[in-house]
């Protein structure tokens, strides 16, 4: 019984997602956004095939874009950096870093934020007051200062970045989920399942959460874009992943002092980050437009 219910609810939510993807076709802004994201996902997936060089291999320092590299017989389409590593290959491999850490951090923040928001919005009372207060306090802290202190104290690593982002973003997600839960908890189907004697965990996860998905999906797109910016900023400030890894923000940091002589070293990773963030923001705008239509 329980499984068949889950299966049908899963099927219906899948079809809802498919429907909104179909609807997205009507919003050219959303399509451009989805295209940009898809482009980087493909690049990240096929990085080993696409990258012409090893991202850590040292070829020839300070090569301008389009320069011919005689030793390997290839053209360095985007030039090399100060250590002589191929920028194109580093961009391609760097897309993997971003597309692993940004969704991971956003996902963790959502897991924490949704649980907190549902507890606050559905149970109300004591839970609500405590959780909302904690959230307000965290949100009152200027975000980047929080990241800097946490990461400078505990050290820069992928895990610490994910933890810091979860800590700082979960309260914002909690606020949205709480608002939605406050509205949905008064619906008839919630009353029906309360009468059926379902546990409050079941009601929160099966009755309330799926019905709150619309605004949450839009928010997740915007937030993913913002998390990508954050990871880039941390890399840029020298608090990102440790150096040899190809990381877009870190590439800008390394090129910063030479940006006035060799601007391509900084411009290319900046353009990569901006295009990916733009993709998520355009997709969010498209989804919002489509969801308002019906």
């Amino acid at each position: 019984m329980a499984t068949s219910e889950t299966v049908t609810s899963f099927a219906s939510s899948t079809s809802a997602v498919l429907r909104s993807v179909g609807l997205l076709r009507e919003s050219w802004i959303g399509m451009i956004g989805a295209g940009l994201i898809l482009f980087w996902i493909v690049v990240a997936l096929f990085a080993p095939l696409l990258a012409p060089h090893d991202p850590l291999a040292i070829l020839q320092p300070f090569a301008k874009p389009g320069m011919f590299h005689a030793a390997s017989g290839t053209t360095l389409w985007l030039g090399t950096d100060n250590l002589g590593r191929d920028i194109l290959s580093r961009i391609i491999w760097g897309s993997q870093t971003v597309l692993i850490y940004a969704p991971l951090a956003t996902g963790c923040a959502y897991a924490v934020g949704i649980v907190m928001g549902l507890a606050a919005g559905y149970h109300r009372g004591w839970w609500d007051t405590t959780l909302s207060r904690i959230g307000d306090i965290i949100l009152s802290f200027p975000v980047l200062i929080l990241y800097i202190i946490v990461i400078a104290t505990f050290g820069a690593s992928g895990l610490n970045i994910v933890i810091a982002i979860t800590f700082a973003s979960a309260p914002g997600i909690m606020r949205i989920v709480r608002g939605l839960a406050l509205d949905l908890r008064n619906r008839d189907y919630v009353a029906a399942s309360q009468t059926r004697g379902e546990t409050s965990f079941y009601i929160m996860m099966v009755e309330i959460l799926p019905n709150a998905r619309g605004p949450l999906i839009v928010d997740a797109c915007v937030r993913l874009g913002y998390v990508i910016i954050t990871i880039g900023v941390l890399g840029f400030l020298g608090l990102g992943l440790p150096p040899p890894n190809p990381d877009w923000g870190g590439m800008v940091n390394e090129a910063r002092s030479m940006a006035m002589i060799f601007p391509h070293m900084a411009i290319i990773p900046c353009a990569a980050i901006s295009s990916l963030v733009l993709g998520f923001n355009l997709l969010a705008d498209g989804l919002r437009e489509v969801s308002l239509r019906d």
Partner: protein
Amino acid sequence: MLILITKRLSFMVMTMVVVSILLFLVLEISPGSVATKVLGQFASDEQKNIWLEQHGYFEPVWYRYIIWAGNFLTGELGVSHRFKVPVGDIMWPRLWNTAVLGFWTFALIIPASLTLGVLAGMREGSKLDRTFSIVSILTTSVPEFASAVFLSAVFVFGLQLLPGTSGMINGFDLTQLILPVLVLFLYDFGYVARMTRASMAEVMTTPYIRTAILKGLPYRQVIMKHALRNALIAPFTVIMLQLNWLLSGVIVVEFFFAYKGFGALLLEASLNQDIFVIEACAMVAVFVAVMTQTIADIGYTYLNPRIRFS
């Protein structure tokens, strides 16, 4: 109204207390590591113990916190072990520099975003509105360090019009302020303008605006007298809260342009583990953030007559 102010102020104090406890715990929970940070990696255990003894680090944690918080309130911020001078001597001039940067940024953002937001929100779905929303998505998608790079490439590398760094070594120089302000403007402007637009668009759909239009009032008057008053309440809050964003934003911009501001100081202190500078800067930042939120909340209530008179 008075009750609200007291409530907000007490929440503000509570936030400051909680944040200060957390900060204290994160940075000072282990006296040994504090001594290492202050005296350096190569200090002997004996030296560390003498220093810890002198500075009261063998007292219980709660006692140390009270002394620490008391010192803070009386302006005793400690000594920066990197610069060997009292923290206040470095921090306050830096804070002033950042205030100058912030002032010019807001002087640009407020008029530009309010005008554009109102114009776009007045006629939802018009050509201007669509163009505006795409431009604002574009500007908010470009991180500050990226727009700093792009702008430098054009104005410093390409046209050679502006200086690439803003160290202000030979005294105050307005041309060195242009690029940092422009970068902050580009990143923040879209958000404020979008909020203004949404608020204006919402007001335009209300019955009282429809009535005003239907009873034949000139469109100008409808906008100026009826719509703007209500539409500008929300942007006021957003602009106040933007100060909180600015505190984060200045770190990137000051670091990029080597501007001697508060954000750069906090970053340098964190990277060098200059513990008392981190504490002082973080507390000042939180104070500014919480203070602006309180003002935004109280101001919002004051501006909204439905709440003010109830």
